[in-house]
């Protein structure tokens, strides 16, 4: 390895001698990006975990979540169903190692886990008492090579702290999922994927809830793509909400206003 790196280093020195400092930094950054891209491309076949939701995979650049990265899940309001979706995705990564849930608020209720498909016997719950300990626990879990997914509920996060978590994730193979409130949307983060979950009113007599999931940012992919998901009340199965009902459905009688596609489905 070292002999092959030597000419590269020599060339670097010559570059530095002839060009201004800022250009050297720019050139180095560009090379680093290319280098990282090569590594990511080579390790595709082992490093990506499918979310288990084909529609969500389709809007993510890697067709899943990359191991050793962070994914930010932002809920627009309390009760949005963001944690349910995140846990549904975490079950896929749980096959690769235990799920570590860091619950700093002490509100997480494990009785709801079996219905989301999470194996309780493969789950470690960490209940730190302070914000500092919470970050410590997430960072340690992310650095552990045996962990499949780390799920943390974090409100406020400074940029440096976020960066620490990202570096911790990169040093290992765990997927870090950070569940965050709506105000986190305004903050820049170090997550490779940022998803925004907005609850949608469900039609009457529907045995499921509807959530719009928008990809705010995805490293190396197109952002601002969204999908409508429906989560079954009984089984918590997540699937793409049908965009249109069957063409043979009964349309509402005249005088009833159709406000959205979902109204048609409700009637049908």
């Amino acid at each position, binding site marked *: 390895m070292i002999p092959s790196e030597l000419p590269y280093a020599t060339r670097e020195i010559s570059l530095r001698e002839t060009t201004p400092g800022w250009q050297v930094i720019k050139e180095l950054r560009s090379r680093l990006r290319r280098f990282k891209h090569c590594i990511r491309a080579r390790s595709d076949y082992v490093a990506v975990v499918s979310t288990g939701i084909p529609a969500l995979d389709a809007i993510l650049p890697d067709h899943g979540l990359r191991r050793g990265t962070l994914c930010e899940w932002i*809920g627009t309001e309390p009760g*949005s169903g963001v944690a349910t979706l995140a846990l549904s995705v975490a079950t896929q990564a749980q096959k690769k190692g235990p799920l570590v849930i860091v619950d700093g608020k002490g509100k997480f*209720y494990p009785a709801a886990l079996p219905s989301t498909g999470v194996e309780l*016997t493969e789950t470690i719950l960490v209940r730190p008492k302070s914000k500092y300990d919470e970050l410590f626990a997430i960072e340690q879990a992310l650095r552990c090579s*045996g962990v499949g997914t780390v799920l943390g509920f974090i409100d406020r996060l400074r940029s440096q702290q976020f960066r620490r978590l990202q570096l911790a994730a990169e040093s290992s193979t765990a997927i870090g999922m950070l569940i965050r409130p709506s105000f986190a949307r305004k903050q820049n983060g170090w997550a490779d994927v940022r998803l925004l979950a907005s609850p949608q009113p469900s039609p*009457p007599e529907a045995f499921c*809830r509807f959530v719009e999931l928008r990809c705010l940012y995805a490293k190396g992919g197109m952002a601002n793509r969204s999908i409508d998901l429906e989560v079954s009340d009984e089984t918590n199965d997540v699937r793409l909400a049908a965009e249109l009902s069957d063409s043979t459905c009964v349309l509402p009688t005249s005088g009833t206003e159709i406000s959205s596609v979902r109204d048609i489905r409700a009637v049908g």
Partner: protein
Amino acid sequence: MRQGIQPGTPLAEAQSLLDSAEFILHDEQADLLELEKLARACHLYSPHVGLEHSCRSHCLVLDITGCASLFKGEFSLAQQILIELMNRGFFAHIAAANTIGAAWGIARHGHEAGANRTLRSLPVEALRIPDQLVMQLREFDLFTIGQLTQLPKDELPSRFGSILTERLDQMLGMHEELIVPVLDPKPVSAEWSTDEPICHRKAIRSICTDLISEILDNLHPQGEGLQRLTATLQSEASDPVVLEIGLTRPVDSLPHVMDLVDLKIETEPIPEWLVGIRLEASATAPLHLRQGTLFTHTPDQELIRNDDSIERLIDRLTARLGAEAVVRPRLLPEALPEKAVRFESFSNSASEKKTTIVDSPGHGPTRPLELFPEPQPIEVISITPDGSPVRFYWKNRTCEVTHCTEPERIQTGWWQDNGCCRRDYYRVETRTGSRFWLFRNGNTSWFLHGVFE
């Protein structure tokens, strides 16, 4: 045996008979230590386990008074002990009798008694007497215990010594014999003290490194690893501080233990001006008994995890956050939501068997992922007094309920700790699509108990 080698055969003769065999010098002390380890392992079957030292070949003695019923009878108990010893690589003869002497005699010489299975038919060797005395008895044509019992008892000591009658009485239960129990060895510890107090953390760490290294060195020959470390810090200015560090499995790695000590020192208040540090291995376990993994694997799961990375993570988190903060959730068959989950630390998984646990994944009643530790009182408007909610106020905002499930009645008996409790739970969806878990307590007050995050 097949080659004609018997106990007592000279070494040179044995070597000539079987030159391919490896001959190892007999170490009586090592044998005794190994037997003591077995005795401690047998505490699983009896609280009183001792060694029988009276003869050249030692044996284990277990007082199984009242224990047999726990193992479905004496025969089943003996079988389980036999299997345990076989798993450890030993073959054993086991006998259960009313006295130590009888059990010893039957275990060693019971097969020589033939069809007549009585103590009287046992050979005189079964009396735990020296070989020389056995030879002496044989010169008088006394071969069985039955023959001895027919002789006048008063004359035996003058002819053969008091040991013969004493052993005979012990076998027949006419003379009391006590079991000297094998006790657990004293915990391995290391201590440091000084006249010049220290307060710098680096100095404390350096001393702890030396002490832990000494403890691990002492545990290593026994094949044991550290499972719990107790540190007592003595100060001039204040009372001693005791720190506990638990590990999920026995370890013999100094860097790992020091890593945990560092985390503990960082978080716990360390008194100033330390004049003494005492570290004690308060729990140890054989290194070969370390568990494979903390989690069960199904064949379809990919096992890419490192051997002990999860255990190390749990050790680190426990050292920093405390055992109660790193837990495994267990579901209990309790109606009240706040009692339906038990948080079990990884160090006391033994208590798992005491209560019924419902961990199998299933689709029971829908529960929210976020449950408030205490239900929050809220103001709710419903059309009828005992009807479902139409609107509620929470965190200074009005939530219009568009969908609501039928009430789920959760009621406990008056004999429960907190008395009778009757709640009607509703899963409600607001106009924006958010979902909450409300309940009405009796017919009066409303509470928000959870959020379907």
